């Protein structure tokens, strides 16, 4: 037991409690964290909740030594810790799995883990292998030790990252939005791993997440950050999801209302986008015999467990993957080949699943916004900068983007990045909008806003193909739901008949 300024901190198990005390951090004029205090305990899952830009990641980067606070300190059982680098953090028993993994992709799992713990010149790979196998069993984290990392699916790469952190002896593990990259099944098994690490190994876990369902399932304690301040910190069973959302958003925000669907979905109109037996030949993960049609003003949801051809379908419709068989017809005209240019000319717009891959971080917001229509702003001599800026200003107003036109795109928060990309998509007035994972990793406010934009677009008779792993999102927005399984569309269900159960069976490949 230690007494720090009247606060009594009980340490459970072997590992000390970690106390972040009065942390303040500013980037230029933006205050990311203001006088934040947080305590972490061994054997506890501490969920960290907050909108994008609330300061969750910044706080954890400070704890892991990736970033230095302007003031405040980190203590372990009342003793000040000096954490100036991830190395210091690991020495203090703190590990972190960041959103972007730090694995050497073309090395094996063994080599990656040996790399993290290498202390001498001679590395005994056989010993490391044995350690991996025993740690895998102990923590319930199955990984194939001899596999090359790049050949593993994302969910297994994540396990390797977690195992790497655990094997370096950490007693606290920070997971930064670990489920954002996972499909539903993988999320369940990750949550199981988290439970096991907490209960069996006594590891203290910090879970950064946006998803209420996950927090309900595993968290012991929940802290909510808003605008760089802790607005609530309490036991998980003492607070409801609704209260948490209210705390995050800071005002009474009910969930998005069901989209108003027109009484007679435009059955009479002829479809604007028709895919007929589209196929892409790949050794793994191609497409076969994908057929569907979308009418103006209709939202066709594409559901499916991640990795069943959704990404390939979006790549086909953005023109970055060429089709090997079948036809794509837009407005009654068959496309000769599906290049980005021919699709754009036909009126097909795209919001890709990875916002980082869809924009150029080093370029300004205004430049990214016109990247798909540079010619439109090209004057006789040079780009018409003033017109670009006024176009950007109006997009910023219209789409409620929190950004300066001349700011580098890479410095925006996820929600604002997504809004810029949506502004780019909709300013073309596309006849068909292909929208993939539009709210992945976004906070509640941004999510609701993005969904209302999609509904708005369909009202203006844009045909929307909405690809999402969030089934609730699809059920909320779609007029019809097409389900993909192993590269094919296995069923198209009307909104009135779509339910979690009926879609779920199709997703699992059970129903016909």
């Amino acid at each position: 037991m230690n007494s720090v300024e009247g606060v009594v901190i009980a340490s459970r198990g072997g590992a000390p409690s970690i106390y972040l005390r009065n942390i303040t951090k500013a980037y230029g004029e933006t205050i990311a964290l203001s006088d934040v205090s947080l305590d972490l305990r061994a054997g506890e899952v501490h969920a960290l909740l907050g909108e994008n830009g609330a300061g969750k990641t910044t706080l954890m980067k400070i704890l892991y030594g990736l970033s230095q606070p302007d003031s405040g300190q980190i203590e372990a059982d009342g003793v000040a810790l000096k954490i100036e680098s991830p190395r210091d953090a690991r020495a203090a028993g703190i590990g972190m799995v960041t959103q972007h993994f730090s694995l050497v992709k073309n090395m094996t799992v063994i080599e990656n883990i040996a790399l993290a713990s290498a202390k001498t010149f001679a590395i005994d790979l056989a010993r490391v292998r044995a350690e991996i196998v025993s740690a895998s069993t102990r923590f319930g984290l199955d990984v194939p030790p001899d596999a090359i990392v790049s050949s593993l699916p994302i969910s297994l790469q994540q396990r390797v990252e977690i195992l790497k952190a655990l094997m370096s002896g950490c007693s606290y593990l920070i997971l930064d939005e670990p489920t954002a990259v996972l499909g539903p099944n993988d999320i369940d098994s990750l949550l199981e791993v988290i439970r096991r690490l907490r209960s069996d190994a006594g590891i203290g876990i910090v879970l950064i997440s946006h998803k209420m369902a996950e927090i309900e399932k595993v968290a012991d304690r929940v802290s909510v950050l808003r605008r760089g301040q802790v607005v609530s910190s309490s036991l998980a069973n003492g607070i409801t999801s609704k209260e948490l959302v209210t705390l995050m958003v800071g005002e009474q925000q009910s969930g998005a209302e069901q989209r108003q669907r027109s009484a007679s979905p435009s059955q009479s109109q002829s479809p604007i986008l028709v895919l007929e037996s589209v196929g892409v030949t790949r050794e793994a993960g191609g497409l076969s015999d994908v057929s569907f049609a979308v009418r103006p003003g209709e939202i066709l949801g594409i559901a499916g467990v991640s990795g069943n051809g959704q990404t390939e379908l979006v790549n086909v419709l953005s023109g970055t993957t060429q089709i090997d068989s079948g036809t794509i017809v837009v407005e009654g005209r068959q496309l000769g080949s599906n290049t980005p240019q021919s699709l754009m000319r036909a009126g097909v717009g795209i919001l890709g699943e990875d916002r980082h891959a869809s924009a150029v971080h080093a370029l300004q917001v205004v430049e990214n916004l016109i990247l798909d229509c540079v010619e439109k702003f090209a004057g006789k001599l040079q780009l018409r900068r003033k017109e670009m800026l006024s176009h950007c200003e109006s997009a910023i107003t219209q789409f409620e983007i929190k950004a300066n036109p001349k700011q580098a795109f890479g410095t925006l928060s996820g929600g604002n990045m997504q809004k810029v990309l949506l502004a780019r998509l909709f300013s073309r007035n596309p006849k068909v909008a292909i929208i993939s994972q539009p709210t992945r990793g976004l906070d509640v406010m941004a999510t609701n806003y993005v969904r209302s934009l999609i509904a708005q677009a369909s009202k203006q008779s844009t045909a929307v193909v909405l690809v999402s792993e969030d089934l609730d999102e699809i059920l909320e927005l779609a007029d019809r739901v097409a389900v993909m399984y192993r590269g094919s569309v296995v069923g198209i269900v009307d909104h009135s008949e779509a339910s979690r159960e009926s879609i779920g069976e199709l997703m699992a490949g059970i129903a016909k």
Partner: protein
Amino acid sequence: MIDVTEEIISSSLRIATPLALAALGELVTEKSGVLNLGVEGIMYGSAFVGIATAAQTGSLTAGLVAALVSGALAGLIFAFATVTLGVNQHVAGLGLTLLMISLCNTANRIIFTADGGQVRVDPWQPLNFGGPIFSQYWLTYATFLIAVPFVWWLLWKSGLGLKIRAVGENPEAADVAGIGVAKTRYTAIIIGSLFMALGGAFITLAFVGTFTVNIINGRGWVALALVIFGRWTIGRLLIGAALFSLVNAGQLQLRLLPSFADVPFEILLALPFLAVIVGLAISGRNVPYPGAYLKPYKRL
């Protein structure tokens, strides 16, 4: 003393001309995400083709045009290898340099030096606007008054420049936005090669009026270093070119001083290159490479 200073500045501008041209060309190329290690070879080729054509036709202008054509062709070969075939950029660039140097040396031997002679033309003469500083070749004036603003405008003001920077940072995003990645990179590589070719032609058609083996003498490699030293900005790139040229011009003057008579001239000769190494060691760390540097782009 003033005479010496003016003399040093004047000859610095002369020395900086081919370096600045080649570095500007390399800058345009690298901004598109492509490293062109063929710069030494492209300069070598245009230096030779320029003077050979000028000697045969008697026209320096014809020589300059031929030099530009040779640069564009070399750039086209490099672009085909790296952009279309996706060949490793180091390999393609080094290969291009070796190819151009040996082709030109062989052609030079067959055409001009077989009978022990040497190709010679009457080079361009400096245009004198008063004083040693403003007595420069027209290409020097053109480099600093036209080429430098042009490249700045091209990269940061024009639509093509935006496309070049986009494909250099994130070709996937550019592709999805309908920008032809291959087309943009071809364009950047060929524009870049034209500037390198101008730099090479300047040496034979203005600076020396003859061609000898190893005439480019590492200027292409210095240009590559200048782009990194300049952190892909024109202002810093020019500062680098100025520093290198000042040290070079300074050491030429030092050699004339009696007190330096005992210093081996090789040491003085090495001074500007030492300056490049020191400069890179100081400012070449943590440089912001273009995001897609060295990465060929292929659709899935």
